[in-house]
C-alpha cells in the first residue's frame, strides 16, 4: 500500500505557525525516501503524521497500518535488556514465545548486536543503541520503517557502518523506508528520493539514480551539489 498525503497541514498546540503546511506527497511501496531540510522545517512532523503519532488539522493521510519508527537517541526502555527492548512490539502484539525468539534473534543478527542481548541500554554505545532501536522497529515486520535522524549523535565511522546495514536491511526486506536527516550527503548516499523541506513546505523532490555504494560513484558529488544549491537558495 502506498503512502499518500493530500494537502496536509499540522500546527502543534504550543506553536502559532504550522509545522507542516499544505503538503501533498505519494510514496510507493518499497521506496527509500529521505527528507532533508533545516531544523524546524517540519520533516520529523511528517514522520509523526505518517506513523499516526500526530493527526493533521487539515488534509488526509493514507498509510499502511503497520509502521515502526526508530528515534534520534534510540528511545530504548532503560529497564529492559536489549532482547526485551527488541521484543517490545512483538510482546504487545501477543506473539508466541517461539515467534518472539525467532524474530528478535533474526534482527539482532542482522544488526550485529546479538552478543549484547543481555545488556541494558546504559551499557551500550550510541551506535549500539541505535542498532537496537532499528532492530526493535524491524522485529515487528512493519510495512513502513520510519527513521528519525538516527545518525545525528553518532561518530562518522559508526554512521557509515549503519548506513550500509540499513541499505542491506532495505534490500533484504523490500520495506518502505523514510529517513529524516539534516545532511545532504547522507540523504544522497542512501535514498532513492530526496525530499527537501523548508518552513513546513515541500520545496523540491529529487530522484537519485545512482548505484550503491554511492559515495564512490561518479555522479554522487554532482547530485549532492544540485541539492545543495536548492537547499541554500533563499
Amino acid at each position: 500500500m502506498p503512502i499518500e498525503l493530500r494537502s496536509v497541514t499540522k500546527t502543534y498546540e504550543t506553536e502559532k505557525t504550522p509545522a507542516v503546511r499544505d503538503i501533498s506527497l505519494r510514496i510507493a511501496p518499497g521506496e527509500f525516501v529521505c527528507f532533508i531540510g533545516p531544523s524546524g522545517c517540519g520533516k520529523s512532523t511528517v514522520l509523526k503524521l505518517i506513523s499516526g503519532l500526530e493527526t493533521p488539522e487539515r488534509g488526509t493521510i493514507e498509510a499502511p497500518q503497520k509502521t515502526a519508527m526508530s528515534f534520534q537517541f534510540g528511545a530504548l526502555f532503560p529497564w529492559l535488556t536489549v532482547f526485551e527492548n527488541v521484543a517490545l512490539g512483538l510482546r504487545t502484539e501477543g506473539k508466541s514465545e517461539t515467534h518472539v525468539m525467532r524474530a528478535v534473534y533474526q534482527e539482532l543478527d542482522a544488526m550485529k548486536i546479538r552478543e549484547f542481548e543481555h545488556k541494558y541500554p546504559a551499557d551500550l554505545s550510541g551506535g549500539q543503541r541505535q542498532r537496537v532501536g532499528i532492530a526493535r522497529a524491524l522485529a515487528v515486520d512493519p510495512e513502513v520503517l520510519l527513521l528519525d535522524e538516527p545518525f545525528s549523535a553518532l561518530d562518522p565511522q559508526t554512521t557509515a557502518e549503519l548506513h550500509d546495514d540499513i541499505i542491506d536491511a532495505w534490500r533484504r526486506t523490500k520495506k518502505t523506508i523514510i529517513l529524516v536527516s539534516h545532511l545532504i550527503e547522507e540523504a544522497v548516499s542512501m535514498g532513492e528520493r530526496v525530499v527537501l523541506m523548508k518552513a513546513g513546505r515541500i520545496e523540491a523532490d529529487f530522484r537519485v539514480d545512482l548505484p550503491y555504494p554511492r559515495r564512490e560513484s561518479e555522479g554522487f558529488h554532482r547530485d549532492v551539489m544540485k541539492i545543495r544549491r536548492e537547499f541554500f537558495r533563499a
Partner: protein
Amino acid sequence: MISMKHVHHHPRHIALTYPASVRQHFYLLLIGPLVLALVVYLIASAYQLPHTPAPLSPAQLLSATLATIVRIAVAYVASVLIAVPLAIFATKTKTLERIFLPVFDILGSVPILAFFPVVVLVFVRFDFPEGAAVFILFLNILWNIVFTVVGGLKIIPKDIVYAAKIFGLTGWSYTRRLILPAIFPQLVVGSILAVAEGWNLVIVAEALHTYIPHGDPSQDLFGIGSILVQAAANSQNGVFIAALIIMVLFIGVFNLLVWQRLLTISQRFRFD
C-alpha cells in the same frame, strides 16, 4: 624524538570475597544490634511508665516499635496506592494538569498538624483512635509521593512515549510497561523522604491525649512515639534513650537493607 611506552594489560580478576571494609560493616551489622539491645534492656528494665502496670521491658519496647512500624507501613501502602494513580490521572492531559497541579500545590502546602486535633476528635468519636494516627500519616506521605511521582512523569522523554505508542502500548499495558517503571526512581526517593517525615510525625500522632480535652496518657496509642513523648514528659531519660536507640537502629538498618538497595536498583530505571 617520539618515545613509545608499552602498556601491559593485566587480566582483571573478579574478586570472590568482599573488601575488608564491607566485612567489617557486616560484623558491625550483626554485633551492633546485639550490644545496643543489651544496653536498651539494662536501661529500660529500670523504669516504669505512669500508665503501665510493670517496668517497661525490652519486649514491650520492641512491640511498641513494631506497632509504630505497622502504623507507618499501613499509611505508606495506602498513600502509594492512591498517590500513584492520582498523579498519573492528573498528568494525563494538559487540561487535567492545569486543574489538578495547582490544587495539589495548595493541599500539599497546608500544614497537616493544624488539622490533627479535629481529626483526633472525629476518630475518637467513632471510637477508632488508631485511625487518627494512620490518617494523618497517610495524608503526610500522600503529598510527598504525589509530588515526586508527578516529577517523575514529567521527565519521561517524549521519544520514549512515542516509542511506546508506536509499539502498541495502550491502557494498562502502557501504565504497567512504561509509566510504572519510569516513575520507579522518583517513587523510591519520594518514599524515603515521606517515610522519614512519617517517623517525625508519628511521635506527635501517637500522643493522642494532648489533643483530647481532659485527655490522659492512657488514651495514647501504643507505639515508640508515645513512649518517647511520655518518657520525655516524665523525665524518664533512660526510657527515652532506650526508645530513641531502638528507633534510630531500626531506621538505620532499614535504610541500609531496603532503601539503599532500592536506590541502587532504581539506577537501572533512569533515563539518560
